[in-house]
């Protein structure tokens, strides 16, 4: 069975890069454009891992992560933060919100897949 990845990012460019990278690596990819949509598709997507941006309209990555962690059914899903924010403060906030790990953009396909492998069984 293919592993399912939910990606949440408002940039069409990044969404496409994620889609191609993940599909090529044999993952099933579900995509959302912001935190609100990410939470909405959670049930339907039932992902094994989530990759999310931080800066997004409507609901940013911090809010989205908190939303997932509050969800009884999906709170155990590993969440990787995908962002250009490389400073420790942002990482820390993401961790406090419940992020499992992070990937710094611009991402290298290998590193992305690697990070996903690290947090999924």
């Amino acid at each position, binding site marked *: 069975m*293919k*592993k399912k990845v939910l990606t949440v990012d*408002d*940039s*069409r*460019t*990044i*969404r*496409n*890069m994620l*889609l*191609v*990278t993940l*599909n*090529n*690596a*044999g*993952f099933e*990819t*579900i*995509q*959302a*454009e*912001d935190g*609100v*949509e990410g939470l*909405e*598709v959670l049930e339907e997507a039932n992902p094994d891992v989530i990759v999310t941006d931080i*800066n*997004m*309209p*409507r*609901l940013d990555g911090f809010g989205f992560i908190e939303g997932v*962690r509050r969800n009884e059914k999906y*709170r155990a*899903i*590993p*969440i990787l933060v995908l962002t*250009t924010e490389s*400073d420790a403060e942002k990482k820390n906030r993401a961790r406090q919100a*419940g*992020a*499992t*790990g*992070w990937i*710094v*953009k*611009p*991402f*290298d*396909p*290998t*590193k992305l*897949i*690697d990070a996903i*492998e*690290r*947090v*999924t*069984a």
Partner: protein
Amino acid sequence: MDMNEIKEIFFQECEEQLAELESGLLRLNDGDRDPETVNAVFRAVHSIKGGAGAFGLDDLVSFAHVFETTLDCVRSNRLEPTQDVLKVMLKSADVLADLTNVARDGGSVDQARSKQLIRELEALANGEAPPAAEAPAAKAPAAKAPAPKAAAPAPAPVPNEEGFVPVTFSFDDFGGEEEEVIMVAPTYEISFKPKSDLYSKGNEAALLLRDLSRLGEMSIHCNMDALPSLEQMDPEAAYFSWKISITSDKGEDAIRAVFEFAEWDCELEITTAEDTSAEAGEELPMQPVPFDLSILDEEPAGPIGIAEEEEQIAAAAVSAAEVASNVVQIASAASRAPAETKAAAAPAAAAAQNTAQAASAAGQTIRVDLDRVDRLINLVGELVINQAMLSQSVIENDANGTSSINMGLEELQQLTREIQDSVMAIRAQPVKPVFQRMARTVREIADITGKSVRLITEGENTEVDKTVIDKLAEPLTHMIRNAVDHGLEMPEKRIAQGKNPEGTVRLTAKHRSGRIVIELADDGAGINREKVRQKAIDNDLIAADANLSDEEIDNLIFHAGFSTADKVSDLSGRGVGMDVVKRSIQALGGRINISSKPGQGSVFTMSLPLTLAVLDGMVVTVAGQTLVVPLTAIVETLQPEASAIHSFGASQRLISIRNSFCPLVDVGRILNFRATQANPVEGVALLVESEGGGQRALMVDAIQGQRQVVIKSLEANYTHVPGIAAATILGDGRVALILDVDAVVSASRGQPLKPEISLAAAG
């Protein structure tokens, strides 16, 4: 989909982000202090930076980074977005747009300008701008934090290069994998004690240990001493801790990297075996861990591992259909978003509004090759003609046709019309992008002229055919330049006249009776009629004693080669005058006129067809020829009575309509369809409004009816004919010419129809 296609998407997205950036900055400039506006602006730059980084567009990345840093100061209330600050930011947005264009199309940017702006942005981020009054002193040191470090000492010319090093975590240590020559691998003793948070954040000790086991030969001891009884335990708390011994040549960094995500949520100690006495491990029963616990990672299609980088993206062919179906799926998911969103979040009204905006922006869209749309439009045009011909032949062959056929034909006509409207709507686009470009034009020219200008745009979402939009930018740019350069006064002069030193240029778009009307108004000095008149006399455009209305004088500026600027400025001069603007607008089947009030400013009004493909026309007969007169030009039709016709001069005639006189124009004569004047009483007069605002009565022999016609370009199929805008094919298969009303009217004023005057070139 390959990297090039994604890159194309990136540039498309850049355009959207740049538009978003500019409109956000303009809103801030107007005093909007909604945090979401600042966020949106920040995100736009951030997003461009992110994508640019992925494609290695370093210039774009480094400029965007500095810009983003400064925006972050605004976002976190460390920098007040004053007008001065926003001026720098708007210029930076322009440079960002230039850099994006260069990244896509090649060429070069004004290095000096972008360097200058980088310095200005950094200065702002370093708090060198007028500090916000309410910012407490305590915040000051923090304000410097996000600025690129190297920027602090001023002299460094390219500080951002240093400051921005994307911190990617390094996996290079993994890179070599097994094949390397194995030196004597050191043994590490690791003590790993997770906290409960490690699990609640989705990390898993077992997975960390799995990754660790891949680094070398490992044995492990699990310490369960902390484990309470079942009754007392919290099932989600961390009780186990581990002592691990691993022999690996990958180095301590590689080991630490395994725990990178976990380091906040565990106690971790790593020592090399030499540091500790060898006996340390002896007390604990260590369990050897096999190198490959394949069961734990058999799930995905094989770990893609550490392989050949980008080729994986680019090469491996994901079927386009697969990607496409995913995209569609996403789009439909997005469309569901709006409804629940509002309930979920955003208590503040402003936020709710933003939500609505975001939701509408996320509407379902597909991208279609323009050629396909045009082909469809062409075919529908043929369908319309075909349908008209069918109707006609049914009527001709069966005068009292059965009602069912007639009803069917009517329905067919209705359907055809609807299909046509729907197809046209595909090409319809909001004028927003053009309007946004104008904002930049205004900024640039304001800078050069030293005038202070505010551009207000309204009706940006008014839609019109894409062709019209594309062709609108140039004349509009020229007019805006004119308005700022010639229209608005210098600030001192404005103050002297009791005006706001800041001039206003208002650009509006709206739909009016099946056309789009674009207005450009300035609050400058207005047309200097004396000067215009004198110039026209000097240039032999009018007689010295000509009696012209104010309106007629104003419209003189549209004459070829007319320019009132005392010296040709390098801006709006450029050797083109308003006549070129007028011709461009006419070429789009549009009209333009001006109204001006001395001391209060001028208003240019352009009226353009919504589409260049079809036209509602009145089909008339002139000297045995069938002509189509655009319905939009016709005010009314009337049957002249002999008593209403008044002759004056050699061949001029007037018709009196409700106590006013209107020149009568014999279309057959003007177009040289006949040698002598027709008798007005035997024909029909079409009262038309020409772009100068004056009315004329066009004489035609008879009216055949009213219908929508598909425009076929004469230039494309034959050659340009003076006085004729285009051609069409009627229901009976005959070709009919579409009259260029404005050309005919000006010909009637004594200006012969010259072939070089480009008339409407539709189609």
